[in-house]
């Protein structure tokens, strides 16, 4: 079995833990539960003939009270930068985290995850900003931890892309 370590990073309350909970346990809670420290979850999946264990590191949200430890990325196959589409500044926070990680760990595979697609009418992250990021070659996923849309596809795309990169 191939083991892939994947880190969830982003500002606080963007839905990192909810995305992991939706993917691993098929559950969702409306109530916000802050993460302190790190929680690690695992999910075994089959990608074609290959068995993969995703080891998902859910890192505490970045804010005044806690800062990301870039060493958490050591050994990671990549990371997901999670953004709350309804809170525009969380995109800035994610891009800032990305710069911090790249500066300390070098380039690692990553994708930008725009969560809370179920609240699309309340989004502050504009379509033009999303298009500009896509034009820069950034891989983007739109999903909803609440209704599950796009969540499985996002994690499994990440795992598949990683396997393909290893194979090549």
């Amino acid at each position, binding site marked *: 079995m191939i083991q892939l*370590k994947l880190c969830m990073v982003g500002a*606080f*309350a963007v839905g990192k833990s909810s995305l992991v909970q939706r993917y*691993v*346990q098929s559950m969702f809670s409306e109530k*916000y*539960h*802050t993460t*302190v*420290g*790190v*929680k*690690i*979850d695992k999910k075994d999946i089959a990608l074609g003939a290959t068995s993969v264990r995703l*080891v998902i*590191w859910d890192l505490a*949200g970045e*804010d005044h*009270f*806690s800062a990301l*430890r870039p*060493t*958490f990325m*050591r*050994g990671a196959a990549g990371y997901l930068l999670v953004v709350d589409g309804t*809170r525009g500044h969380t995109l800035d926070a994610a891009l800032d985290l990305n710069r911090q990680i790249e500066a300390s760990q070098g380039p690692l595979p990553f994708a930008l995850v725009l969560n809370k697609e179920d609240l699309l009418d309340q989004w*502050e992250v504009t379509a033009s900003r999303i298009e500009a990021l896509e034009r820069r070659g950034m891989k983007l996923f739109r999903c909803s931890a609440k209704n599950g849309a796009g969540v499985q596809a996002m994690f499994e795309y990440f795992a598949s892309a990683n396997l393909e990169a290893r194979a090549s």
Partner: protein
Amino acid sequence: MTSGRSERADLPLPEPLDLGLVLGGLDMVVLKPERDDTFLLMTEPTPWFKALSGTVRSVGARLSLHGLSDYLDHFLFDAAEFWLKGVPGRIRSGPWLEAPDGGEGRALEAQALFHGDDGYLILEHLGEVYKAQVRVLQSAREHLLNEEALEREVLRRTQSIRLREEEIAMRLLAAAATRDGETGSHVRRIGLYAAAIGEALGWEASRIADLRLAAPMHDVGKIGIPDAILRKPGALSAQEFRIMQDHTVIGARMLGTSDIPLLCMAREIALGHHEKWDGRGYPQRLVGEKIPIAARIVTIVDVYDAMVHRRVYKAPIPEAEVLATMEQGVGRDFDPALFEVFVGILPIIRAIRDGNLDEPL
């Protein structure tokens, strides 16, 4: 009377400190790294450590910690480097949640110590300390989320008020513009074109919003021009033209001096939108960048919109012809850099034009 010395001699001697017992009470285990990648258990194992390590062990047992916890494995890499340096001190792992079988789990923290000539690993169950930390952070972050939500609501309502103000202003300006045959759509378009240029220049949102509302006020001074001149069919005499030119000064006077950025900008535009880049304009014959940038923007979009649309005195001119004519005015009538920006966003300009067609008031 007994001496102080004999009193002290009567005191019971303290019991030797059982460090293992003390540490056991702190809900932690202490291990000592050995050379063969194993650890020596130095305190009684706690129930959670027994659950984590999977076997019942006792003080003095040697065990491998590898593979017990992904997070601990990660920290032991850092700890090994730390112990190798041999510098007194400690490093902490930060808390992590160890959740066997996907349950709620327990919060643990590891510390690597170096004391004397030896390294030590302390694994601590954070218990209530962690729960208290979670409660504090939960409360602080919920407070921040509430603040964010309130700020968004204030912003939404401010925008709503601003839109209402804009709508009122647009209707008044459109009504005033009918005196010289302009339409409400022309007034609106000037604001939208100008705002599009402001956006292309990377201006701040509030400055763009001001420009969108200030630009349509460029001809507000025409209120003070007599109908006989303003609505005169055919060419104006030299004296009539001088009176007509006064609309810039009248407009600036009407808008007055104000600390409100929107009105300051509107005044600059009203006064400066007939200035020309090479200094041939009026009323102040300003040259180049001496002309406020908002006025230079309006000069370009006002000419463009007047030429491409029908007026009582002329048919619409095809855009290609308009652009060719305007091109000849670059560096004379128009700021070359701004004209380049204008041409660069022509698709947006056309979309504004097509989306705001002339309609009767």
